[in-house]
């Protein structure tokens, strides 16, 4: 009886682990709830916010994504088409929640206005030269 329970528990754990692996596969974009996706950046296009976002980016993001946002050591290029085509709400959601299993930490400790300033800065970056694009995905 006990061994049956142990086997059943191990089987359930395997199923849960497999489900977690499958759930974590694929783009983070698919995980963003519709309400978050539709959120609007209150600082979109504001030069002051873009400038402040650049300072925040240099402080918190450049260490992994590079000061040019093209990605370092295989980490995502933030000027890729995937990021450029994401909505402000989707980028804000990723900053708040992170993609923990892929190495992107949550930045919920930053106040929301600062996260929007970073999004405003990302939006101001020109598209990457296709020749120098490094393809990285979370």
């Amino acid at each position: 009886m006990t061994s049956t329970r142990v086997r059943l528990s191990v089987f359930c754990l395997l199923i849960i682990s497999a489900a977690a692996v499958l759930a974590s596969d694929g783009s983070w974009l698919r995980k963003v709830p519709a309400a978050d996706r539709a959120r609007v950046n209150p600082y979109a296009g504001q030069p002051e916010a873009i400038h402040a976002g650049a300072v925040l980016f240099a402080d918190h993001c450049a260490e992994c994504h590079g000061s040019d946002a093209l990605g370092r050591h295989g980490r995502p290029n933030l000027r890729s088409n995937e990021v450029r085509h994401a909505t402000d709400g989707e980028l804000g959601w990723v900053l708040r929640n992170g993609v923990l299993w892929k190495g992107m930490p949550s930045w919920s400790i930053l106040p929301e206005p600062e996260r929007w300033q970073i999004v405003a800065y990302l939006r101001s970056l020109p598209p990457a030269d296709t020749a120098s694009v490094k393809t990285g995905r979370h």
Partner: protein
Amino acid sequence: MLSLLSPPFGRRCKCARRAHFAIFHDARRTIAAAFFLLLACTGACKFVRAQEPPYFVTYSEALEEPGNLEIATKNLAGRPHDAHAFESTTLELEYGAKAWWTTELYLQGQATAGDSTLFTGFRWENRFRTLPTEHWVNPVLYIEYEDVNGADKSILEVTGHDSIQDLQTPNGESRGDVSRTMEGKLILSSNAKGWNISENWIMEKNLMGGAWEYGYAVGASRPLTLKAGGRNCVFCRQNIGAGAEVYGGLGTVRDFGFDDTSHYAGPVANLNLPHGPTLSFSPQFGLSSNSAGVLWRFDVSYEVQQLRDLFHREAQ
């Protein structure tokens, strides 16, 4: 840190002094090694300010960014009633192993006026973020092993019936009382409208015997402004965080409650210097007759960016 490198206070007998210097020498070597690591990194790594709430005892959901190493000294000074003034220094090495896992090593020491200076032990802790996305309350699990002697005065948490009497015992008596304990914490943390509110529920068990001991820590803090400015300034409001924390013991499994426990509360503040260290300060006041009057806390922390990149080759 300086206290560990300075000669001991007061007169001591020859054998005690020899024993002291053996421990003192070990502590000095350990700390010198940590400094070496810091200096080695100075040339190769970039320092950045840490972005964490200004608590000293309470943990929030903020983990170390993966690949970053935070090097900090946690300093505590106090002059308890009927006891010598003391200063405790803890060297903290915190590494972001994963975005959901942070691991830390602490090396602890203290100096007591009219008594001695000694290395008191170490602790190794791990924090795991349990949920993949942000929620109203975010749970983080904390597991720690500590090997410290009774002379430790770091007060990194208060559990059970920890009291002012622990601080009044001479180092020569208390250092022989070594305890190896496992400690667990449930960290609950929320972020709303710029505020961080964190609650920690602590349980600790001495592996060498004794009952489960309980404790708590609660903190709330907020940056002085929620919106960043466009220039790199030092004393801007965006670089300053402020709040308060309260912590104390909750007895043991046999006598759970506030009887014969110590509690502290005080304001906390930190200054994040752009591309420099984070400085934190707090006066913490004893709330019960079992507590020391005032504890003065002062932390300095550096974050070394992406230490792991030193060992990576640039992706082709």
